[in-house]
C-alpha cells in the first residue's frame, strides 16, 4: 500500500501539468468580444513567473484544435512582475504590461522599470520589450524621459 501511494504521488508529480493560474476578486467574460477581464488584487502565476496588478484583460483566440487560448494579457494598475528566463530573474514594473504568449514577449509601457537580478542590470524607459525565450531586452525612451541603464558594479 505504501509503495502504491508513493508511486501515485511520484507519477502525479512527474506528469503534473504546468498551468497558468489567475486569482482575482472579480471576473467578467464577454464571448462576443473574446475577452476575459479580471479586477481587484489580480495575481497571475505561471510556474515560477508571477504578475500582480489591479486589472488584467485576457484576449482569447481559437487555436487549430478549436480551443480557446489566450493570445494577449494586458495588465494595468500597480503592475509588477517576476519572470525567470535563461537562468536569469527579471523584475519589472510599469503603468501597463502586455504579455503575448504566442510571441513569448513582454512589453512594459509607461514608467518602465526592468531589473535583471543576477547581473544587477537595471533599465528605465517609456517602452521596454523583453523576449522570454532569449532573455534579450530592448528599451525605447522619449525626449522628456530618456533611456537610463544602470549596472551594479561589485567591489
Amino acid at each position, binding site marked *: 500500500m505504501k509503495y502504491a501511494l508513493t508511486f501515485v504521488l511520484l507519477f502525479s508529480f512527474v506528469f503534473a*501539468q*504546468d*498551468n*497558468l*493560474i*489567475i*486569482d*482575482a*476578486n*472579480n*471576473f*467578467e*467574460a*464577454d*464571448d*462576443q468580444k473574446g475577452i*476575459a477581464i*479580471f479586477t481587484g488584487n489580480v495575481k497571475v502565476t*505561471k510556474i515560477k513567473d508571477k504578475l500582480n496588478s489591479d486589472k488584467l484583460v485576457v484576449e*482569447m483566440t481559437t*487555436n487549430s484544435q478549436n*480551443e*480557446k*487560448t*489566450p493570445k494577449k494579457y494586458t495588465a494595468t494598475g500597480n503592475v509588477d512582475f517576476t519572470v525567470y528566463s535563461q537562468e536569469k530573474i527579471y523584475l519589472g514594473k510599469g503603468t501597463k504590461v502586455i504579455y503575448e504568449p504566442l510571441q513569448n514577449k513582454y512589453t512594459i509601457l509607461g514608467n518602465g522599470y526592468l531589473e535583471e537580478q543576477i547581473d544587477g542590470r537595471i533599465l528605465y524607459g517609456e517602452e521596454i520589450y523583453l523576449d522570454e525565450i532569449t532573455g534579450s531586452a530592448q528599451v525605447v525612451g522619449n525626449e522628456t524621459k530618456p533611456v537610463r541603464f544602470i549596472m551594479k558594479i561589485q567591489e
Partner: protein
Amino acid sequence: MAIKYFIFITFIISLFTLFIGVGTKQKIQESEEKPIMIFDNSVLFTINSQEIQRIVDSKKTLIYKKKEESFDSKVVFKTTENNIYDTLISDYTLKVGNKISFLGNVVFERSDFMKLTSEEVFYDLSKKIAHNTKDFVASYYNNKLTGNSFYTKDIYYMKSKDVTFEIELKD
C-alpha cells in the same frame, strides 16, 4: 398554598400549549397544498407555435396552482441564440412564475463551452439569466474556473467573484 400555585401554573401552561397547538396545525395545513397533477418518470415539453421552449425530464414532477416542483430532474432551455441550449440537472427544482430554483448537486451546462457545478442555481426564464450565491467549479471552454456568485446574461456575458482561473499551457 403550594397546591394552589401548582394548580394555577398547570392551568396557565395547559392554556398556553392549547393555543400553540392550534397555530402549528394551521401552518401545516397551509403548506400541505395538494398538487393538481403528479407526473412520475415523465418528460414534459413546453412549446409555443414555432418551437420547443423547455423540456423537463424528471423522476417526479408535482404541479400546483402557482408553482411546480421536480425531483431528480434535467431541464433543457432554448436560449436566445439558435443551436445554443442551457441544461440544468439538480436534485430539486422549484418553479414559481418565471423564476426557477435548482437546488442540490446542480450541474449547469451552456451548450458545449461551459459546465458549472454548484449547490444552487437560479434561472430567470424571461430574461434568460442564471445566477447563484454559493461556490462553484466550472470548465469554461478548455479552462478551469472556480469562484462564487456567478451571473450570466444572455449567452455571451458572464461574471463572478473570488475567482481562480486556470489555463492549460500548451507546448
